[in-house]
């Protein structure tokens, strides 16, 4: 009969995950419930099928590529920590001064560079660190479907690669990609801001204690009922 238990102890390695991704405890809890909701058959991990069930994602032209980013290196399952790490890329960038951050710690997942890296690997299927013209064509084809002819697509791809390519190797490396976005200033788009922290608050200690007692009341009610039925 369970009600949703809002206890944060459900999430494994919650503290380290929080530090790594920068999500608040409340946000992490919400994402955990979301993970569980998406996980049909309660396997404990998500498969491609689970993500493809989301209607709005399945009609997204880049839906398959986005799903791919959750399954790097040909893996078939994504567990909750990896799920949250990918989502962490889309947290609003912290406005702290870059100089104040401890240079020995790894860059936060939602830094501008990491956001751009995420977008880069949507293009770079074979993970060779460069977007070739062929890969560019593939992504374009995904986004336009059958609406545009092959020649038009090729000319667009050609032009884009030429504009961004600086060292003349006919492909766009990550640094060239980052420089192009720097000029356009569009890295800010990769943000999904949550209002989660404002809504969820954890129940007080007293209520938690009472909730555990309540389970016994449930039992009592059921016993009373069955007693009545038997006596009937």
């Amino acid at each position, binding site marked *: *009969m369970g*009600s*949703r238990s*809002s206890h944060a102890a459900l999430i494994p390695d919650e503290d380290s995950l929080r530090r790594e991704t920068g999500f608040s405890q409340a946000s992490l809890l919400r*994402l955990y419930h979301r993970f569980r*909701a*998406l996980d049909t058959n309660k396997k404990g991990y998500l498969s491609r099928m689970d*993500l*493809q*069930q*989301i*209607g*709005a*994602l*399945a*009609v*997204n*032209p*880049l*839906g398959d*590529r*986005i799903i791919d980013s959750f399954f790097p290196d040909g893996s078939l399952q994504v567990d909750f920590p990896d799920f949250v790490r990918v*989502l962490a890329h889309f947290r609003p960038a912290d406005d702290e001064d870059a100089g104040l951050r401890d240079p020995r710690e790894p860059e936060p997942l939602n830094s501008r560079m990491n956001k751009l890296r995420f*977008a880069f690997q*949507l293009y770079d299927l074979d993970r060779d660190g460069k977007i070739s013209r062929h890969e560019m064509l593939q*992504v374009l084809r995904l*986004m*336009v*479907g*059958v*609406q545009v002819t092959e020649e038009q697509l090729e*000319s*667009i791809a050609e032009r*884009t690669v030429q504009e*961004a390519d600086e060292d003349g190797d006919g492909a766009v490396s990550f640094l060239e990609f980052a420089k192009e*976005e720097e000029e*356009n200033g*569009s890295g800010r788009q*990769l*943000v*999904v*801001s*949550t*209002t*989660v922290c*404002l*809504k*969820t*608050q954890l*129940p*007080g200690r*007293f*209520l938690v204690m*009472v909730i555990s007692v*309540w389970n016994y009341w*449930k039992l009592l*009610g059921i016993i*009373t*009922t069955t007693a*009545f039925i038997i006596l009937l």
Partner: protein
Amino acid sequence: MEGTELAGKILSTWLTLVLGLILLPSAFGVSLGISEIYMKILVKTLEWATIRIEKGVPKESVKNSASVGIIQRDESPMEKGLSGLRGRDFELSDVFYFSKKGLEAIVEDEVTQRFSSEELVSWNLLTRTNINFQYISLRLTMVWVLGVIVRYCVLLPLRVTLAFIGISLLVMGTTLVGQLPDSSLKSWLSELVHLTCCRICVRSLSGTIHYHNKQYRPQKGGICVANHTSPIDVFILTTDGCYAMVGQVQGGLMGIIQRAIVKACPHVWFERSEMKDRHLVTKRLKEHIADRKKLPILIFPEGTCINNTSVMMFKKGSFEIGGTIHPVAIKYNPQFGDAFWNSSKYNMVSYLLRVMTSWAIVCDVWYLPPMTREEGEDAAQFANRVKSAIAVQGGLTELPWDGGLKRGKVKDAFREEQQKNYSNMIVGNGSLNSESN
């Protein structure tokens, strides 16, 4: 033994009370007003609780409870989202827009949201809805404890007994009526039995139903169409008029009930194998409504239970049969009890237990004027028209998605629409750009 004698005496007095105060009035369709008093007390208590919670909670969180979801969505259309005017060229950053939309969908999407219970703005003193609210004061907790005692030890046994009596009366009554030969007496009796037993069952859930626009109540030979939230919908509609049900033959208790009630009046039950054959289904339903003496058919075109905040795609199969469609909108008030059946999370028994330990089931039923298919309108468009009418009346949002999406894949047509939109943007003026190059 003294103990059993005492228990026997208590039981018999209690049963007579139940009989006198609840069963007999239901048979005559009369209300004694006990449930109204209960509802008044309940409403006052919940109002007091809300005021206490609002006093105790800091100011910021109250402001933001109006937002529907957990993320701030940028609902601007594709043109604005891609930060450009029409006819701009493709840029490497275009992929950002789609990936952002995709990630938003992963965190929270419209469809999956509809398959979990609606979240309340203010707590209604049930633990199951307490995910957002924290400890406020001792008095509130004491009221909550009192509520638990009342619900589990007083209301639950009463409700279970009533439900038991209701269902057994239904089975016995309809079997008895089924022995009679076909006549107007038989249909009158079967109506009486159905109405009485459904009223008893609704009382067993402490149901308070308001019917609006009774003049549009579905007539014989029509098809009644409603949005689906739970199996209780059937009881709620049947308290005000008899319908012929349509469904699959099932085993167990449901099967017994099905076999019994079909003896008294002609419901339409299909074997599992017959359900696959759409022509057979349509034929049988057409035969049913052609007979003017038979009761209106009750169909839930969504095909699955939705959480009563929105209406999903209506399957066009029900609208191809012809005849007059009588739409009905059902809206539950979630403050008193959540009627939504999440079939993947709870089985039928735990669902019923949850419903019987809520405060009450309060709902509004609106009968809408009958609709027929117009010239040049195909079944899918007609279905959408009916769906909009129901959504508007019930105050529900409309979604174009198929409720069965949780079990199947979505059509490619939607994706092509997005692709077309995007191509228009980058290639719409593409010829101009290639010339200027």
